[in-house]
């Protein structure tokens, strides 16, 4: 009986050790962060100035808004760029607005980063991180989806992919405002 207990304890220690040793390595190998469908909550009642002029009211609705918080110094942001470009290419004429929002970065450098990588979606100027703080952003990349009723409905904390965003945007685009 004591021998059996000892064996079980050894097995338990081995399993815990394996999880501790290999868990982080396995999670690092993941290509993207999960997309979370959040409980719809009104977007912050504020406007986001765009670098090429104009402002984007976050809560006014009428279109689906994808806010991609990024920085030019962020390697994962460069990684997700091609997927964002694909999203923009497919949905830009379908009532979806993708906006890059520099986070903890120089605005001009961040805008150049998007343009140099071939992105032509608008880039915002989030002075004082007002939008980032109002949306609870904690790092980059982070992508927030606002529906046609001006509600935050989904979020990707980490690298976003086309496969994650496309189904969500398709359903939101079709939904009545």
């Amino acid at each position, binding site marked *: 009986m004591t021998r059996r207990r000892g064996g079980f304890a050894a097995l338990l220690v081995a399993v815990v050790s394996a999880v501790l040793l290999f868990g982080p390595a396995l999670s690092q190998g993941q290509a993207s962060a999960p997309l979370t469908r959040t409980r719809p909550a009104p977007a912050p009642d504020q406007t986001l100035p765009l670098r090429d002029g104009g402002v984007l009211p976050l809560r006014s609705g009428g279109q689906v808004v994808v806010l991609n918080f990024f920085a030019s110094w962020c390697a994962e942001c460069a990684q997700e760029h091609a997927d964002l470009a694909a999203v923009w290419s497919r949905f830009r004429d379908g009532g979806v607005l993708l906006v890059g929002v520099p*986070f903890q970065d120089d605005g001009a450098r961040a805008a150049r980063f998007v343009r140099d990588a071939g992105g032509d979606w608008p880039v915002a100027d989030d002075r004082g991180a007002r939008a980032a703080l109002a949306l609870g952003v904690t790092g980059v990349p982070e992508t927030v989806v606002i529906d046609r009723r001006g509600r935050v409905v989904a979020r990707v904390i980490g690298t976003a992919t086309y496969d994650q965003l496309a189904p969500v945007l398709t359903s939101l685009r079709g939904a009545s405002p």
Partner: protein
Amino acid sequence: MRTGRGAGLRAVAPLLLVALAVAVAFVAIAAGPGRPASLDERTRAVGATLRCPVCANLSVAEAPSGLAGDMRARIRAELAAGHSPDQVRAGFVAVYGESILLDPPRHGPEGLIWLVPVVALVGGGATGLRWLRRGRTPAAVPPC
């Protein structure tokens, strides 16, 4: 006849009372309303209770990151607009959750963690006492 020691104490007692009164007065003045805290001080005080979300366990008041600076600016603006420190904190909690507080309230599922040391202390203490009592009980002596 009184001893010399008793007479000495009697002579010193009024001096001690005066010294005590002066000390109490100093404490009362120090703890009193005094001058109102400046906006900078109030900003620092609120920032010291909030965790910088992008730093390694640093408060917003001391973190060097740009986001912490933006948070300090927001705290300052809201305090200047007449919001109370609790209202400012509540605004951050509404977005980031209670993890933004450096000293989160001890309730909800996270609050259970505070129970662990209490349970361990009470349980361990009770077990230890029982063990000690058992040790003191005289061992039964087998009849000869």
